[in-house]
């Protein structure tokens, strides 16, 4: 049964130093506001998990929240590199960042295994690539029926999964639609989950292609309108493309980055 609580209280309660924290949402519904609250509460030593780490992960990494990153693509979508991510990997600033690199399919299958209560998933990918030697969570496995040697990847079971959705009802059932990624599997695989929503409504009327997460699968819901900015929430807001472009210059330089984070995240009580 999900509790509807303020964002700061939810982060304080659910996310602890050293936790494995997944933040999912693809193209839109990216949980920026929750990420900012993690930064404001100075969480550290996190293992951050995300299929497609973008600007919010650049901010978390640059602020020293992360010890390790589990991912398959890390970039500023449509713009280029993540400079804070690169600085952490290439130069160890502000701290070294351990990488656990997987393919998109490997990440998705790991969530599915976690959500299914299975210890691992099987896929055809990775065979012949150097990732098999580089990533310890990729192992060969022999099919018991055909003898074919495939790849096993262990289940992902985050301590906490954080997503943003369009809305919840008063009982804490969550509904999201538009481009959906692996949010459902990521939430079901986690020990605890936090969902920020645009609004709480009386009734969740059906939407084509929507994913509904029942209240018993969700730990906390926090109402944060615009909580996906600069990404968007289909039906509620549009993508702030200019911000993604601007982030390239803001994030190139360590001091400029820190000044921006102070002014726009640390010293604001609540997110834009």
């Amino acid at each position, binding site marked *: 049964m999900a509790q509807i609580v303020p964002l700061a209280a939810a982060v304080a309660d659910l996310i602890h130093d050293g936790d494995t924290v997944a933040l999912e949402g693809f193209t839109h519904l990216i949980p920026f506001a929750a990420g900012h609250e993690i930064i404001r509460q100075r969480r550290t030593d996190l293992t951050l998990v995300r299929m497609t780490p973008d600007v919010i992960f650049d901010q978390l990494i640059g602020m020293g929240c992360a010890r390790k990153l589990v991912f*398959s693509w890390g970039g500023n979508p449509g713009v280029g590199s993540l400079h804070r991510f690169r600085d952490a990997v290439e130069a160890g600033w502000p701290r070294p960042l351990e990488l656990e690199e997987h393919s*998109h*399919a490997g990440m998705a299958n790991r969530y599915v295994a976690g959500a299914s209560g299975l210890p691992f998933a099987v896929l055809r990918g990775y*065979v*012949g*690539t150097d*990732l098999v030697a580089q990533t310890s969570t990729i192992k060969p496995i022999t099919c018991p029926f055909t003898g074919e040697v495939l790849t096993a990847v262990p289940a992902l079971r985050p301590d906490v999964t954080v997503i943003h959705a369009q809305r919840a009802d008063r009982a804490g059932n969550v509904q999201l639609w538009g*481009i959906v990624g692996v949010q459902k599997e990521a939430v079901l695989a986690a020990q605890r989950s936090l969902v920020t929503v645009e609004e709480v409504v009386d009734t969740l009327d059906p939407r084509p292609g929507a994913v509904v997460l029942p209240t018993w699968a969700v730990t906390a819901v926090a109402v944060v309108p615009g909580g996906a900015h600069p990404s968007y929430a289909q039906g509620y807001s549009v993508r702030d493309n200019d911000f993604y472009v601007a982030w390239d210059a803001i994030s190139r330089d360590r001091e400029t980055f820190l000044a921006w984070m102070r002014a726009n995240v640390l010293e604001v009580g609540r997110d834009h």
Partner: protein
Amino acid sequence: MSPAPADRAEICVVACAEAFRGNGEILGAPIGIVPIIGARLARATFEPDLLLTDGEAHLVYGTWPVGEPPSGATEGWLPYRAVFDVVWSGRRHVIMTPSQIDSYGNTNISAIGDYARPTVQLLGVRGAPGNAVSHPTSYWVPKHSRRVFVPRVDSVSGVGWDNARKAGPAATEFMDLRVVITDLGVFDWETETRQMRIRSVHPGVTVDEVLAATGFPLIVGDEVPTTREPDETELRLIREVIDPHGARYREVKV
């Protein structure tokens, strides 16, 4: 009045379009401006059944300019979570841009230098470890150079023929590397050795120029064909319909 002759960027567009010839009703997944223009050109002309997205989650019919919203009818819904259904059934042909590629078609998009402490951390392997072993895969290199065409990639993100052979049937069963298209020519792999060969050089490019820009020996046939030029219909589609603002020149300078 006949149109001005095709320039190098337009030759590359048509070479990318040709990569999709005969593909039929599968998802074309061109990544990069020139491959996107090429895929739309292929569908508008000789490959009408190709499925293409609006760059997000809709499969859309019709022919519309790059950088603008689609004008055609929506014919399908393919959100991120559903893409694997297409990948794993082999119904997709991707064109990716590698940061490094070697003679056997191993590609690197992960890290330059030592993997544990790279000099350049790239964007990550993305779909590459699954693409090459699941469905047709081609590559687009906007600037053919020894920085990209290396004797040995620093890290194998997408498997090439030699490593796939070593890895066994799980890698080779559905492996289908098609072509590499660059600003200098089109390349594929010799059947016996599986080493890269020049399939054609673009008009105005010499074989020596290609060899000098490649960090490994290429297989060169007795007669190297010239990449075909677009016809008038194709030129009109590129210049007036698909890329009226010249986005192709951001990738291929002329």
